[in-house]
């Protein structure tokens, strides 16, 4: 009964409805990008871009009037600038990508904290920057996420075959005439758009969970790339809806609840899959006479 009441809340309160719709868009985008992030072995890329968002966001708070739109645009612009430097360095491969991403993460996080401590601490709350604040989503945040979803989806689906080629065999793709630098940079730009757009919902810490868990789940259970994408998007959207209802019901922090729920479901599905395999092997074993 209480759970039903908790469900009804989403239709009763505007801010909850926006939270639900915003989360659904974010879940769709993370489900779409997650298999690519996992395939490229960029586990820390989400973390790294989101920490550069922390720096950009604090710079935006410091340098602009602080209206939502100017904040978003300044944060996006600054993050894109920082991320393109990272994208170029990883493309050139002069240093190992994971080291570069790690250095980038630490540097932007430190700078972000310093800028916040020195200039922004009276204007914005660091905790909601780090962990997100889903319940503060307004109509304009939702529309902004909608536009971002449209741009990323268009960028991805219009070149689906080329993306698959690029991620599977970069050198082969280059020789086949696919512009690999363009794809490399566009991948980073799409991730930046997603992470900056999702900042209010997921914060800078938890976005990595949304970018990794659906992809890992899908690669574990599906045997074609199309099904991997469908599986990752379905897992991401399904867990987000249930996670959001749960956090409203349990009155727990939304970002953390969603991430933990995804993790538990991933572990459970792997465990069930393993148990099923063991059972199948046992039933197919020839009986000893």
């Amino acid at each position, binding site marked *: 009964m209480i759970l039903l009441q908790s469900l009804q809340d989403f239709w009763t309160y505007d801010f909850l409805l926006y939270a639900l719709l915003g989360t659904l868009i974010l879940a769709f985008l993370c489900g779409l990008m997650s298999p690519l992030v996992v395939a490229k072995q960029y586990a820390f890329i989400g973390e790294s871009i989101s920490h550069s968002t922390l720096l950009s966001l604090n710079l935006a708070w410091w340098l602009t009037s602080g209206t939502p739109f100017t904040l978003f645009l300044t944060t996006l612009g600054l993050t894109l600038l920082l991320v393109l430097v990272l994208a170029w360095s990883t493309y050139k491969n002069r240093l190992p990508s994971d080291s570069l991403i790690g250095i980038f993460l630490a540097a932007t996080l430190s700078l972000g904290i310093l800028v916040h401590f020195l200039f922004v601490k009276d204007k914005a709350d660091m905790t909601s920057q780090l962990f997100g604040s889903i319940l503060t989503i307004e109509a304009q945040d939702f529309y902004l996420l909608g536009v971002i979803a449209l741009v990323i989806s268009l960028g991805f689906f219009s070149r689906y075959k080329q993306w*698959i080629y690029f991620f599977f065999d970069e050198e082969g793709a280059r020789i*086949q005439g696919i512009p690999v630098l363009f794809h490399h940079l566009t991948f980073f730009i799409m991730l930046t758009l997603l992470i900056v757009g999702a900042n209010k919902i997921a914060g800078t810490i938890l976005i990595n969970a949304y970018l990794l868990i659906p992809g890992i789940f899908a690669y574990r259970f599906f045997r074609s790339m199309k099904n991997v994408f469908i599986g990752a998007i379905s897992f991401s959207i399904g867990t987000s809806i249930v996670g959001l209802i749960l956090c409203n019901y349990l009155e727990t922090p939304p970002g953390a609840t969603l991430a933990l729920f995804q993790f538990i479901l991933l572990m459970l599905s792997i465990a069930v899959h393993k148990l099923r395999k063991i059972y199948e092997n046992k039933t197919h074993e020839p009986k000893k006479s």
Partner: protein
Amino acid sequence: MQEVTLYLKHIHFSYHQNNVLKDINLEVKKGESLGIVGPNGGGKSTLLKLITGGLNPNEGEISFGTDKSLGYVPQNITLNYTMPISVVELIQMNQTKNNKTLFNLDQLLNLVGLENKRDQLIRTLSGGERQRALIARAMISSPRLLVLDEPTTGLDSTGQDQLYSLLNRLKAEHNTSIVVVDHNLSQIIKHCDKILCLNRTSHWHDQKELLTKDVLSSIYHCEFEHIMIHEGGLADESHDQCEHGPGGHHEHQHGSKHEFLRPKK
């Protein structure tokens, strides 16, 4: 006169003021094969990148006859096996609306002997099957030139023989020109029409019949034992205690045209 498929004229390439390649001249005719051998860091991969367009030479000219029609077979270790890609999906990666192909999908699968594995994931195939699937992908656009980067890496001798017999078939039946970089000297000597030995700025290039032990020694900067490149040539069968050669593979076929060689310690 036989049509030229690949033509390299006075190619120079340097990286950070270090000469990597110096004055490379060669041509590969229609249906001809060129094997590129040499020690690690000798410039083989650089030359391959120049041919495939990944790098531009500092000096010289690379041309492809009437048009650039090139199929590339990468080292299969560079593929991303996290992604579940089937044999058919792999081959279709190179299929475009503009492809004027001689083959349909079934013919290609037959050609490379993977007709029973069309829906199998690439990551579940053996090394040799992966290479053959990659050759099928490269051949779907019916290229005039097929470029292979170390195709025998990780293959046992049966896998290597199967691979090279497929390449010979492509040459003979479809007039495909082939450029192959391989550490496996014995296979290169056995199957390629021309050989380029490359070690940075020193190189040797000609018909394989003219390759001598001294040439190899000067390119690899070491002496070679147990070598019999061609009949009546450089037979020296006195060292049977040899270890595996540069290709990690040792062939010993008495009376055959090519025996294998290995650097002397």
